[in-house]
């Protein structure tokens, strides 16, 4: 789960990281009032789950409260990477002498959280990594011991020759690590970490991504989820315990298992079609899940054909068949459906489907080809 900048900053501030004052506004009037209260130049920053906000015009410097109001008017309601901006962060603008990057990410190779620090901050760290890798220090942390003082100090001195700044930076590393662990992050970063003209360090932007598997045991974090910034169908699917990602094609896919779901999407493409979604109904066999899956898929007007691909292991195919029958009785389908199922209780499933006027096959390739054909025909009609 992605956090907004203002949410990440609140968590970082709670851990002790020095961050310029800021508040969220949802109207231009609020933005003006906040700027008025600060009595200094501010930044107005779009709060959406997308990178490249600055390049898209979603981050502006404002000298006066009236200016903040004007910029907020432009930013609120603007669309950045398909996401509508509904909130802005109004924050005191910082004077910048230099910018560094500090981040922690869970690394698959070392199987540890790894610090990445670089004096070349402010821009895309991936660019720095690609063009000048020697400017980045990678430092894995053993979570059984936590970040040690000498480790934080080493990173501090990697960034700054000045001992006072290095010590300040080391303290911020500890605070960032604490925030990272306490929130159950898979990524946390401060970019840029700024040195002010008076030689103080402040975090001007912050980002956190939470491991979804942590949310059950951290309700203070899961409460931060902003459903208004997600596609409604994805929110609906999550509430129904389905993994769903909306795509642009017209073949609606219902599959059990993430790997098979990806392979099914690939096969749709292979046969010249375009998947409308990724949808994994998971391992449990519950007809209700199928009903929800069909409801979500058929609410997408782009879908011209529905494709079921079920390999019954734990999933009982008769449960899936019952789900299809129940769902289509409640809401008769307006588009054709192609059903491929095989595995646990297959004979029973085929009988249930036949008794209710559906046909099904056990061949994955044939089913996908048929679905692509029907979707193409439906799109042309």
């Amino acid at each position, binding site marked *: 789960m992605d956090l907004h900048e203002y949410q990440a900053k609140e968590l970082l501030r709670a851990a002790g990281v020095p961050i310029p004052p800021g508040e969220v506004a949802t109207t231009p009037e609020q933005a003006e009032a906040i700027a008025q209260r600060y009595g200094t130049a501010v930044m107005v920053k779009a709060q959406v789950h997308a990178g490249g906000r600055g390049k898209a015009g979603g981050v502006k410097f404002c000298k006066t409260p009236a200016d903040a109001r004007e910029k907020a008017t432009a930013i609120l309601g603007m669309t950045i990477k398909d996401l509508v901006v509904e909130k802005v962060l109004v924050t005191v603008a910082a004077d910048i002498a230099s910018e560094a990057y500090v981040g922690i990410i869970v690394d698959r190779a070392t*199987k540890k959280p790894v610090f990445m620090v670089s004096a070349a901050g402010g821009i895309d760290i991936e660019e720095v990594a690609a063009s000048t890798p020697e400017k980045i220090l990678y430092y894995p942390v053993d979570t059984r011991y936590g970040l040690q003082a000498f480790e934080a100090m080493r990173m501090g001195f990697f960034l700054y020759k000045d001992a006072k700044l290095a010590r300040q930076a080391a303290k911020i590393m500890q605070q960032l690590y604490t925030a990272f662990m306490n929130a159950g992050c898979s990524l946390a970063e401060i970019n840029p970490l700024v040195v002010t003209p008076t030689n103080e360090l402040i975090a001007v932007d912050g980002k956190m991504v939470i491991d979804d598997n942590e949310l059950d045991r951290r309700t203070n974090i899961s409460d931060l989820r902003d459903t208004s910034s997600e596609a409604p169908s994805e929110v609906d699917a999550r509430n129904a315990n389905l993994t769903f990602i909306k795509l642009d094609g017209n073949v609606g896919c219902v599959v059990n298992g993430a790997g098979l779901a990806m392979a099914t999407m690939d096969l749709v493409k292979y046969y010249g079609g375009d998947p409308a979604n990724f949808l994994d109904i998971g391992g449990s066999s519950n007809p209700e899940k199928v009903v929800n899956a069909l409801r979500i898929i058929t609410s997408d007007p782009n879908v011209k054909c529905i494709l079921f691909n079920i390999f019954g292991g734990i999933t009982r195919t008769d449960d899936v068949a019952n789900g299809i029958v129940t769902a289509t009785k409640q809401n008769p389908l307006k588009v054709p459906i192609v059903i491929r199922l095989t595995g646990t209780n297959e004979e029973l499933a085929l009988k249930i489907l036949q008794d209710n006027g559906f046909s099904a096959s056990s061949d994955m390739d044939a089913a996908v080809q048929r679905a692509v054909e029907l979707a193409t025909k439906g799109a042309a009609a």
Partner: protein
Amino acid sequence: MSIFIDNGTKLIVQGITGRDGSFHAKQMMEYGTQVVAGVTPGKGGQQFEGTVPIFDTVYDAVQATGANTSVIYVPPMFAADAMMEAAAAGVKLIVCITEGVPVLDMTRVYPYVKEHGARLIGPNCPGLITPGQSKVGIIPGRICTPGNVGVVSRSGTLTYEIVNQLTMAGIGQSSCVGIGGDPINGTNFIDCLAAFEADPHTKAVAMMGEIGGTDEQEAAAFVKQHMKKPVVGFIAGQTAPPGRRMGHAGAIISGSAGTAAEKIEAFEAAGMGVAKRPVDFVDLIRARLS
């Protein structure tokens, strides 16, 4: 012959009285796996299905039965503790089926298990099976048949799909291992490829990867440098959009890393066969066996 499990596997089921644990314990027993003990704290002294003794701790179960393998079906928030408990009790092969284990928990579990000299498979995996001998986990037994193709995969149902197609084409398997789709897991492709290379009964390997990370690229480099046996690979997620997590925590393309295209390229560079579709495994494997 096989890798990791065989007739000598003596299994503990952690969470044997839970919904999933009890169902799959029965399935494994029906398949012929020696399930020697169950563990559920507070239910020690009881019996599962009238035959399998239940213990309060893994330590007690190992002491009483000499079990060498454990399979874990406990809820995600308890899985880290269960894995470490098994390692501390001296279990040498630990298979964690549980899905949804926080990755930061795994940063503690992985070094702990390693320091205890145990092998961990998973978490978030379907387990493994040596057809005709033993199954540990949830892979449906009836889709497998004994033979000499090693199967290793990051997926669950996709593995079943491909194993089933191999079986229907008359191509049997030595062992099938599902290593799981999480970013930090106990056993990776290279561990399995090395084991298959060393197993005299395995003649070829089928490997199913996914988008995300660099495990498949490293596996391809291993194949090129260390393997004499032929390997055929497949990558799921060729059409997945970048930046979106495709169900598995590991299945995400971030930045320019982990795309299907670069993985397939690595397979080709290593001289591996590349299956474009799951069904292509049948012909590619058959050609390499003859």
